[in-house]
């Protein structure tokens, strides 16, 4: 069972309630595909990913970034039981999408960096710690059903 302090809970809820999903989602996924090009292996049918400019203007990537970010809503709404909440999504990523779970950490790091850019100095060390704790649990839960 994960223990959340009041600060951590309110910080996570605040970050996601203030987030512009249409901005952060695409920015995070694009940045991930540019900074860690091997992650492009999961997007073979997304069209042109040949260079940074192509990735950043790719509409399918942008749309998928929004989808992935909304996927985190479930965790935000069920912070006390993220593991169970994500059981189905974990099976999906393992059995159907065949995503190497190490990639979850890569996207998590990128998301931290994008959120930091949007929040500026509001993204204090304590806020970063809470956000990374949340992401670590999401990542662990998504990797749970792999075998």
């Amino acid at each position, binding site marked *: 069972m994960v223990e959340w302090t009041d600060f951590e809970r309110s910080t996570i809820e605040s970050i996601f309630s203030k987030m512009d999903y249409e901005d952060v989602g695409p920015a995070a996924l694009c940045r991930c595909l540019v*900074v860690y090009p091997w992650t492009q292996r999961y997007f073979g049918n997304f069209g042109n990913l040949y260079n*940074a400019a192509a990735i950043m203007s790719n509409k399918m990537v942008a749309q998928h970034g929004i989808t992935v970010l909304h996927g985190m809503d479930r965790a935000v709404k069920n912070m006390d039981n993220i593991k169970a909440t994500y059981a189905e999504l974990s099976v999906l990523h393992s059995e159907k999408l065949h995503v190497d779970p190490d990639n979850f950490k890569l996207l998590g*790091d990128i998301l*931290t960096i*994008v959120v930091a*850019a949007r*929040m500026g*100095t509001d993204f204090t*060390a304590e806020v970063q710690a809470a956000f990374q704790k949340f992401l670590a649990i999401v990542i662990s839960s998504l990797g749970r059903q792999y075998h």
Partner: protein
Amino acid sequence: MTLSAKDKAAVKGFMAKMKSRSEEIGTETLSRMLVVYPQTKSYFAHWKDLSPGSGPVKEHGIIFINGVYEAAEKIDDLKNGLLTLSELHAFMLRVDPVNFKIFIHCMLVVLSMLFPEDFTPQVHLAVDKFLAQVALALSEKYR
């Protein structure tokens, strides 16, 4: 994952922008690392004050960032250029290299916060590659 000419140019260009806020970057990176990854405090147990922005943290933050600038000057041969620093980390400080990645992540977060417009995905890629090479060069003398 060698640095291309384009990578080197992107790194040098961004470092020039960083120089205007060196102290801030150094202090913030180190402060943040100590808070977000408390296990890193074990290397600084001899400091009087480990709180964010304290005297020792500020002083040391500047030392770290100057190390990064020094590495950028030697970008064409990091392994040989950073031999002395590698010996320091290997034989004296004995910092577990896993912490280099932690430090790098904190630095990238701070750069993203302070330079939201300039820290584009392409610059992020180049700086990440560069810092990974620096970490590798620092690990050279470990064993």
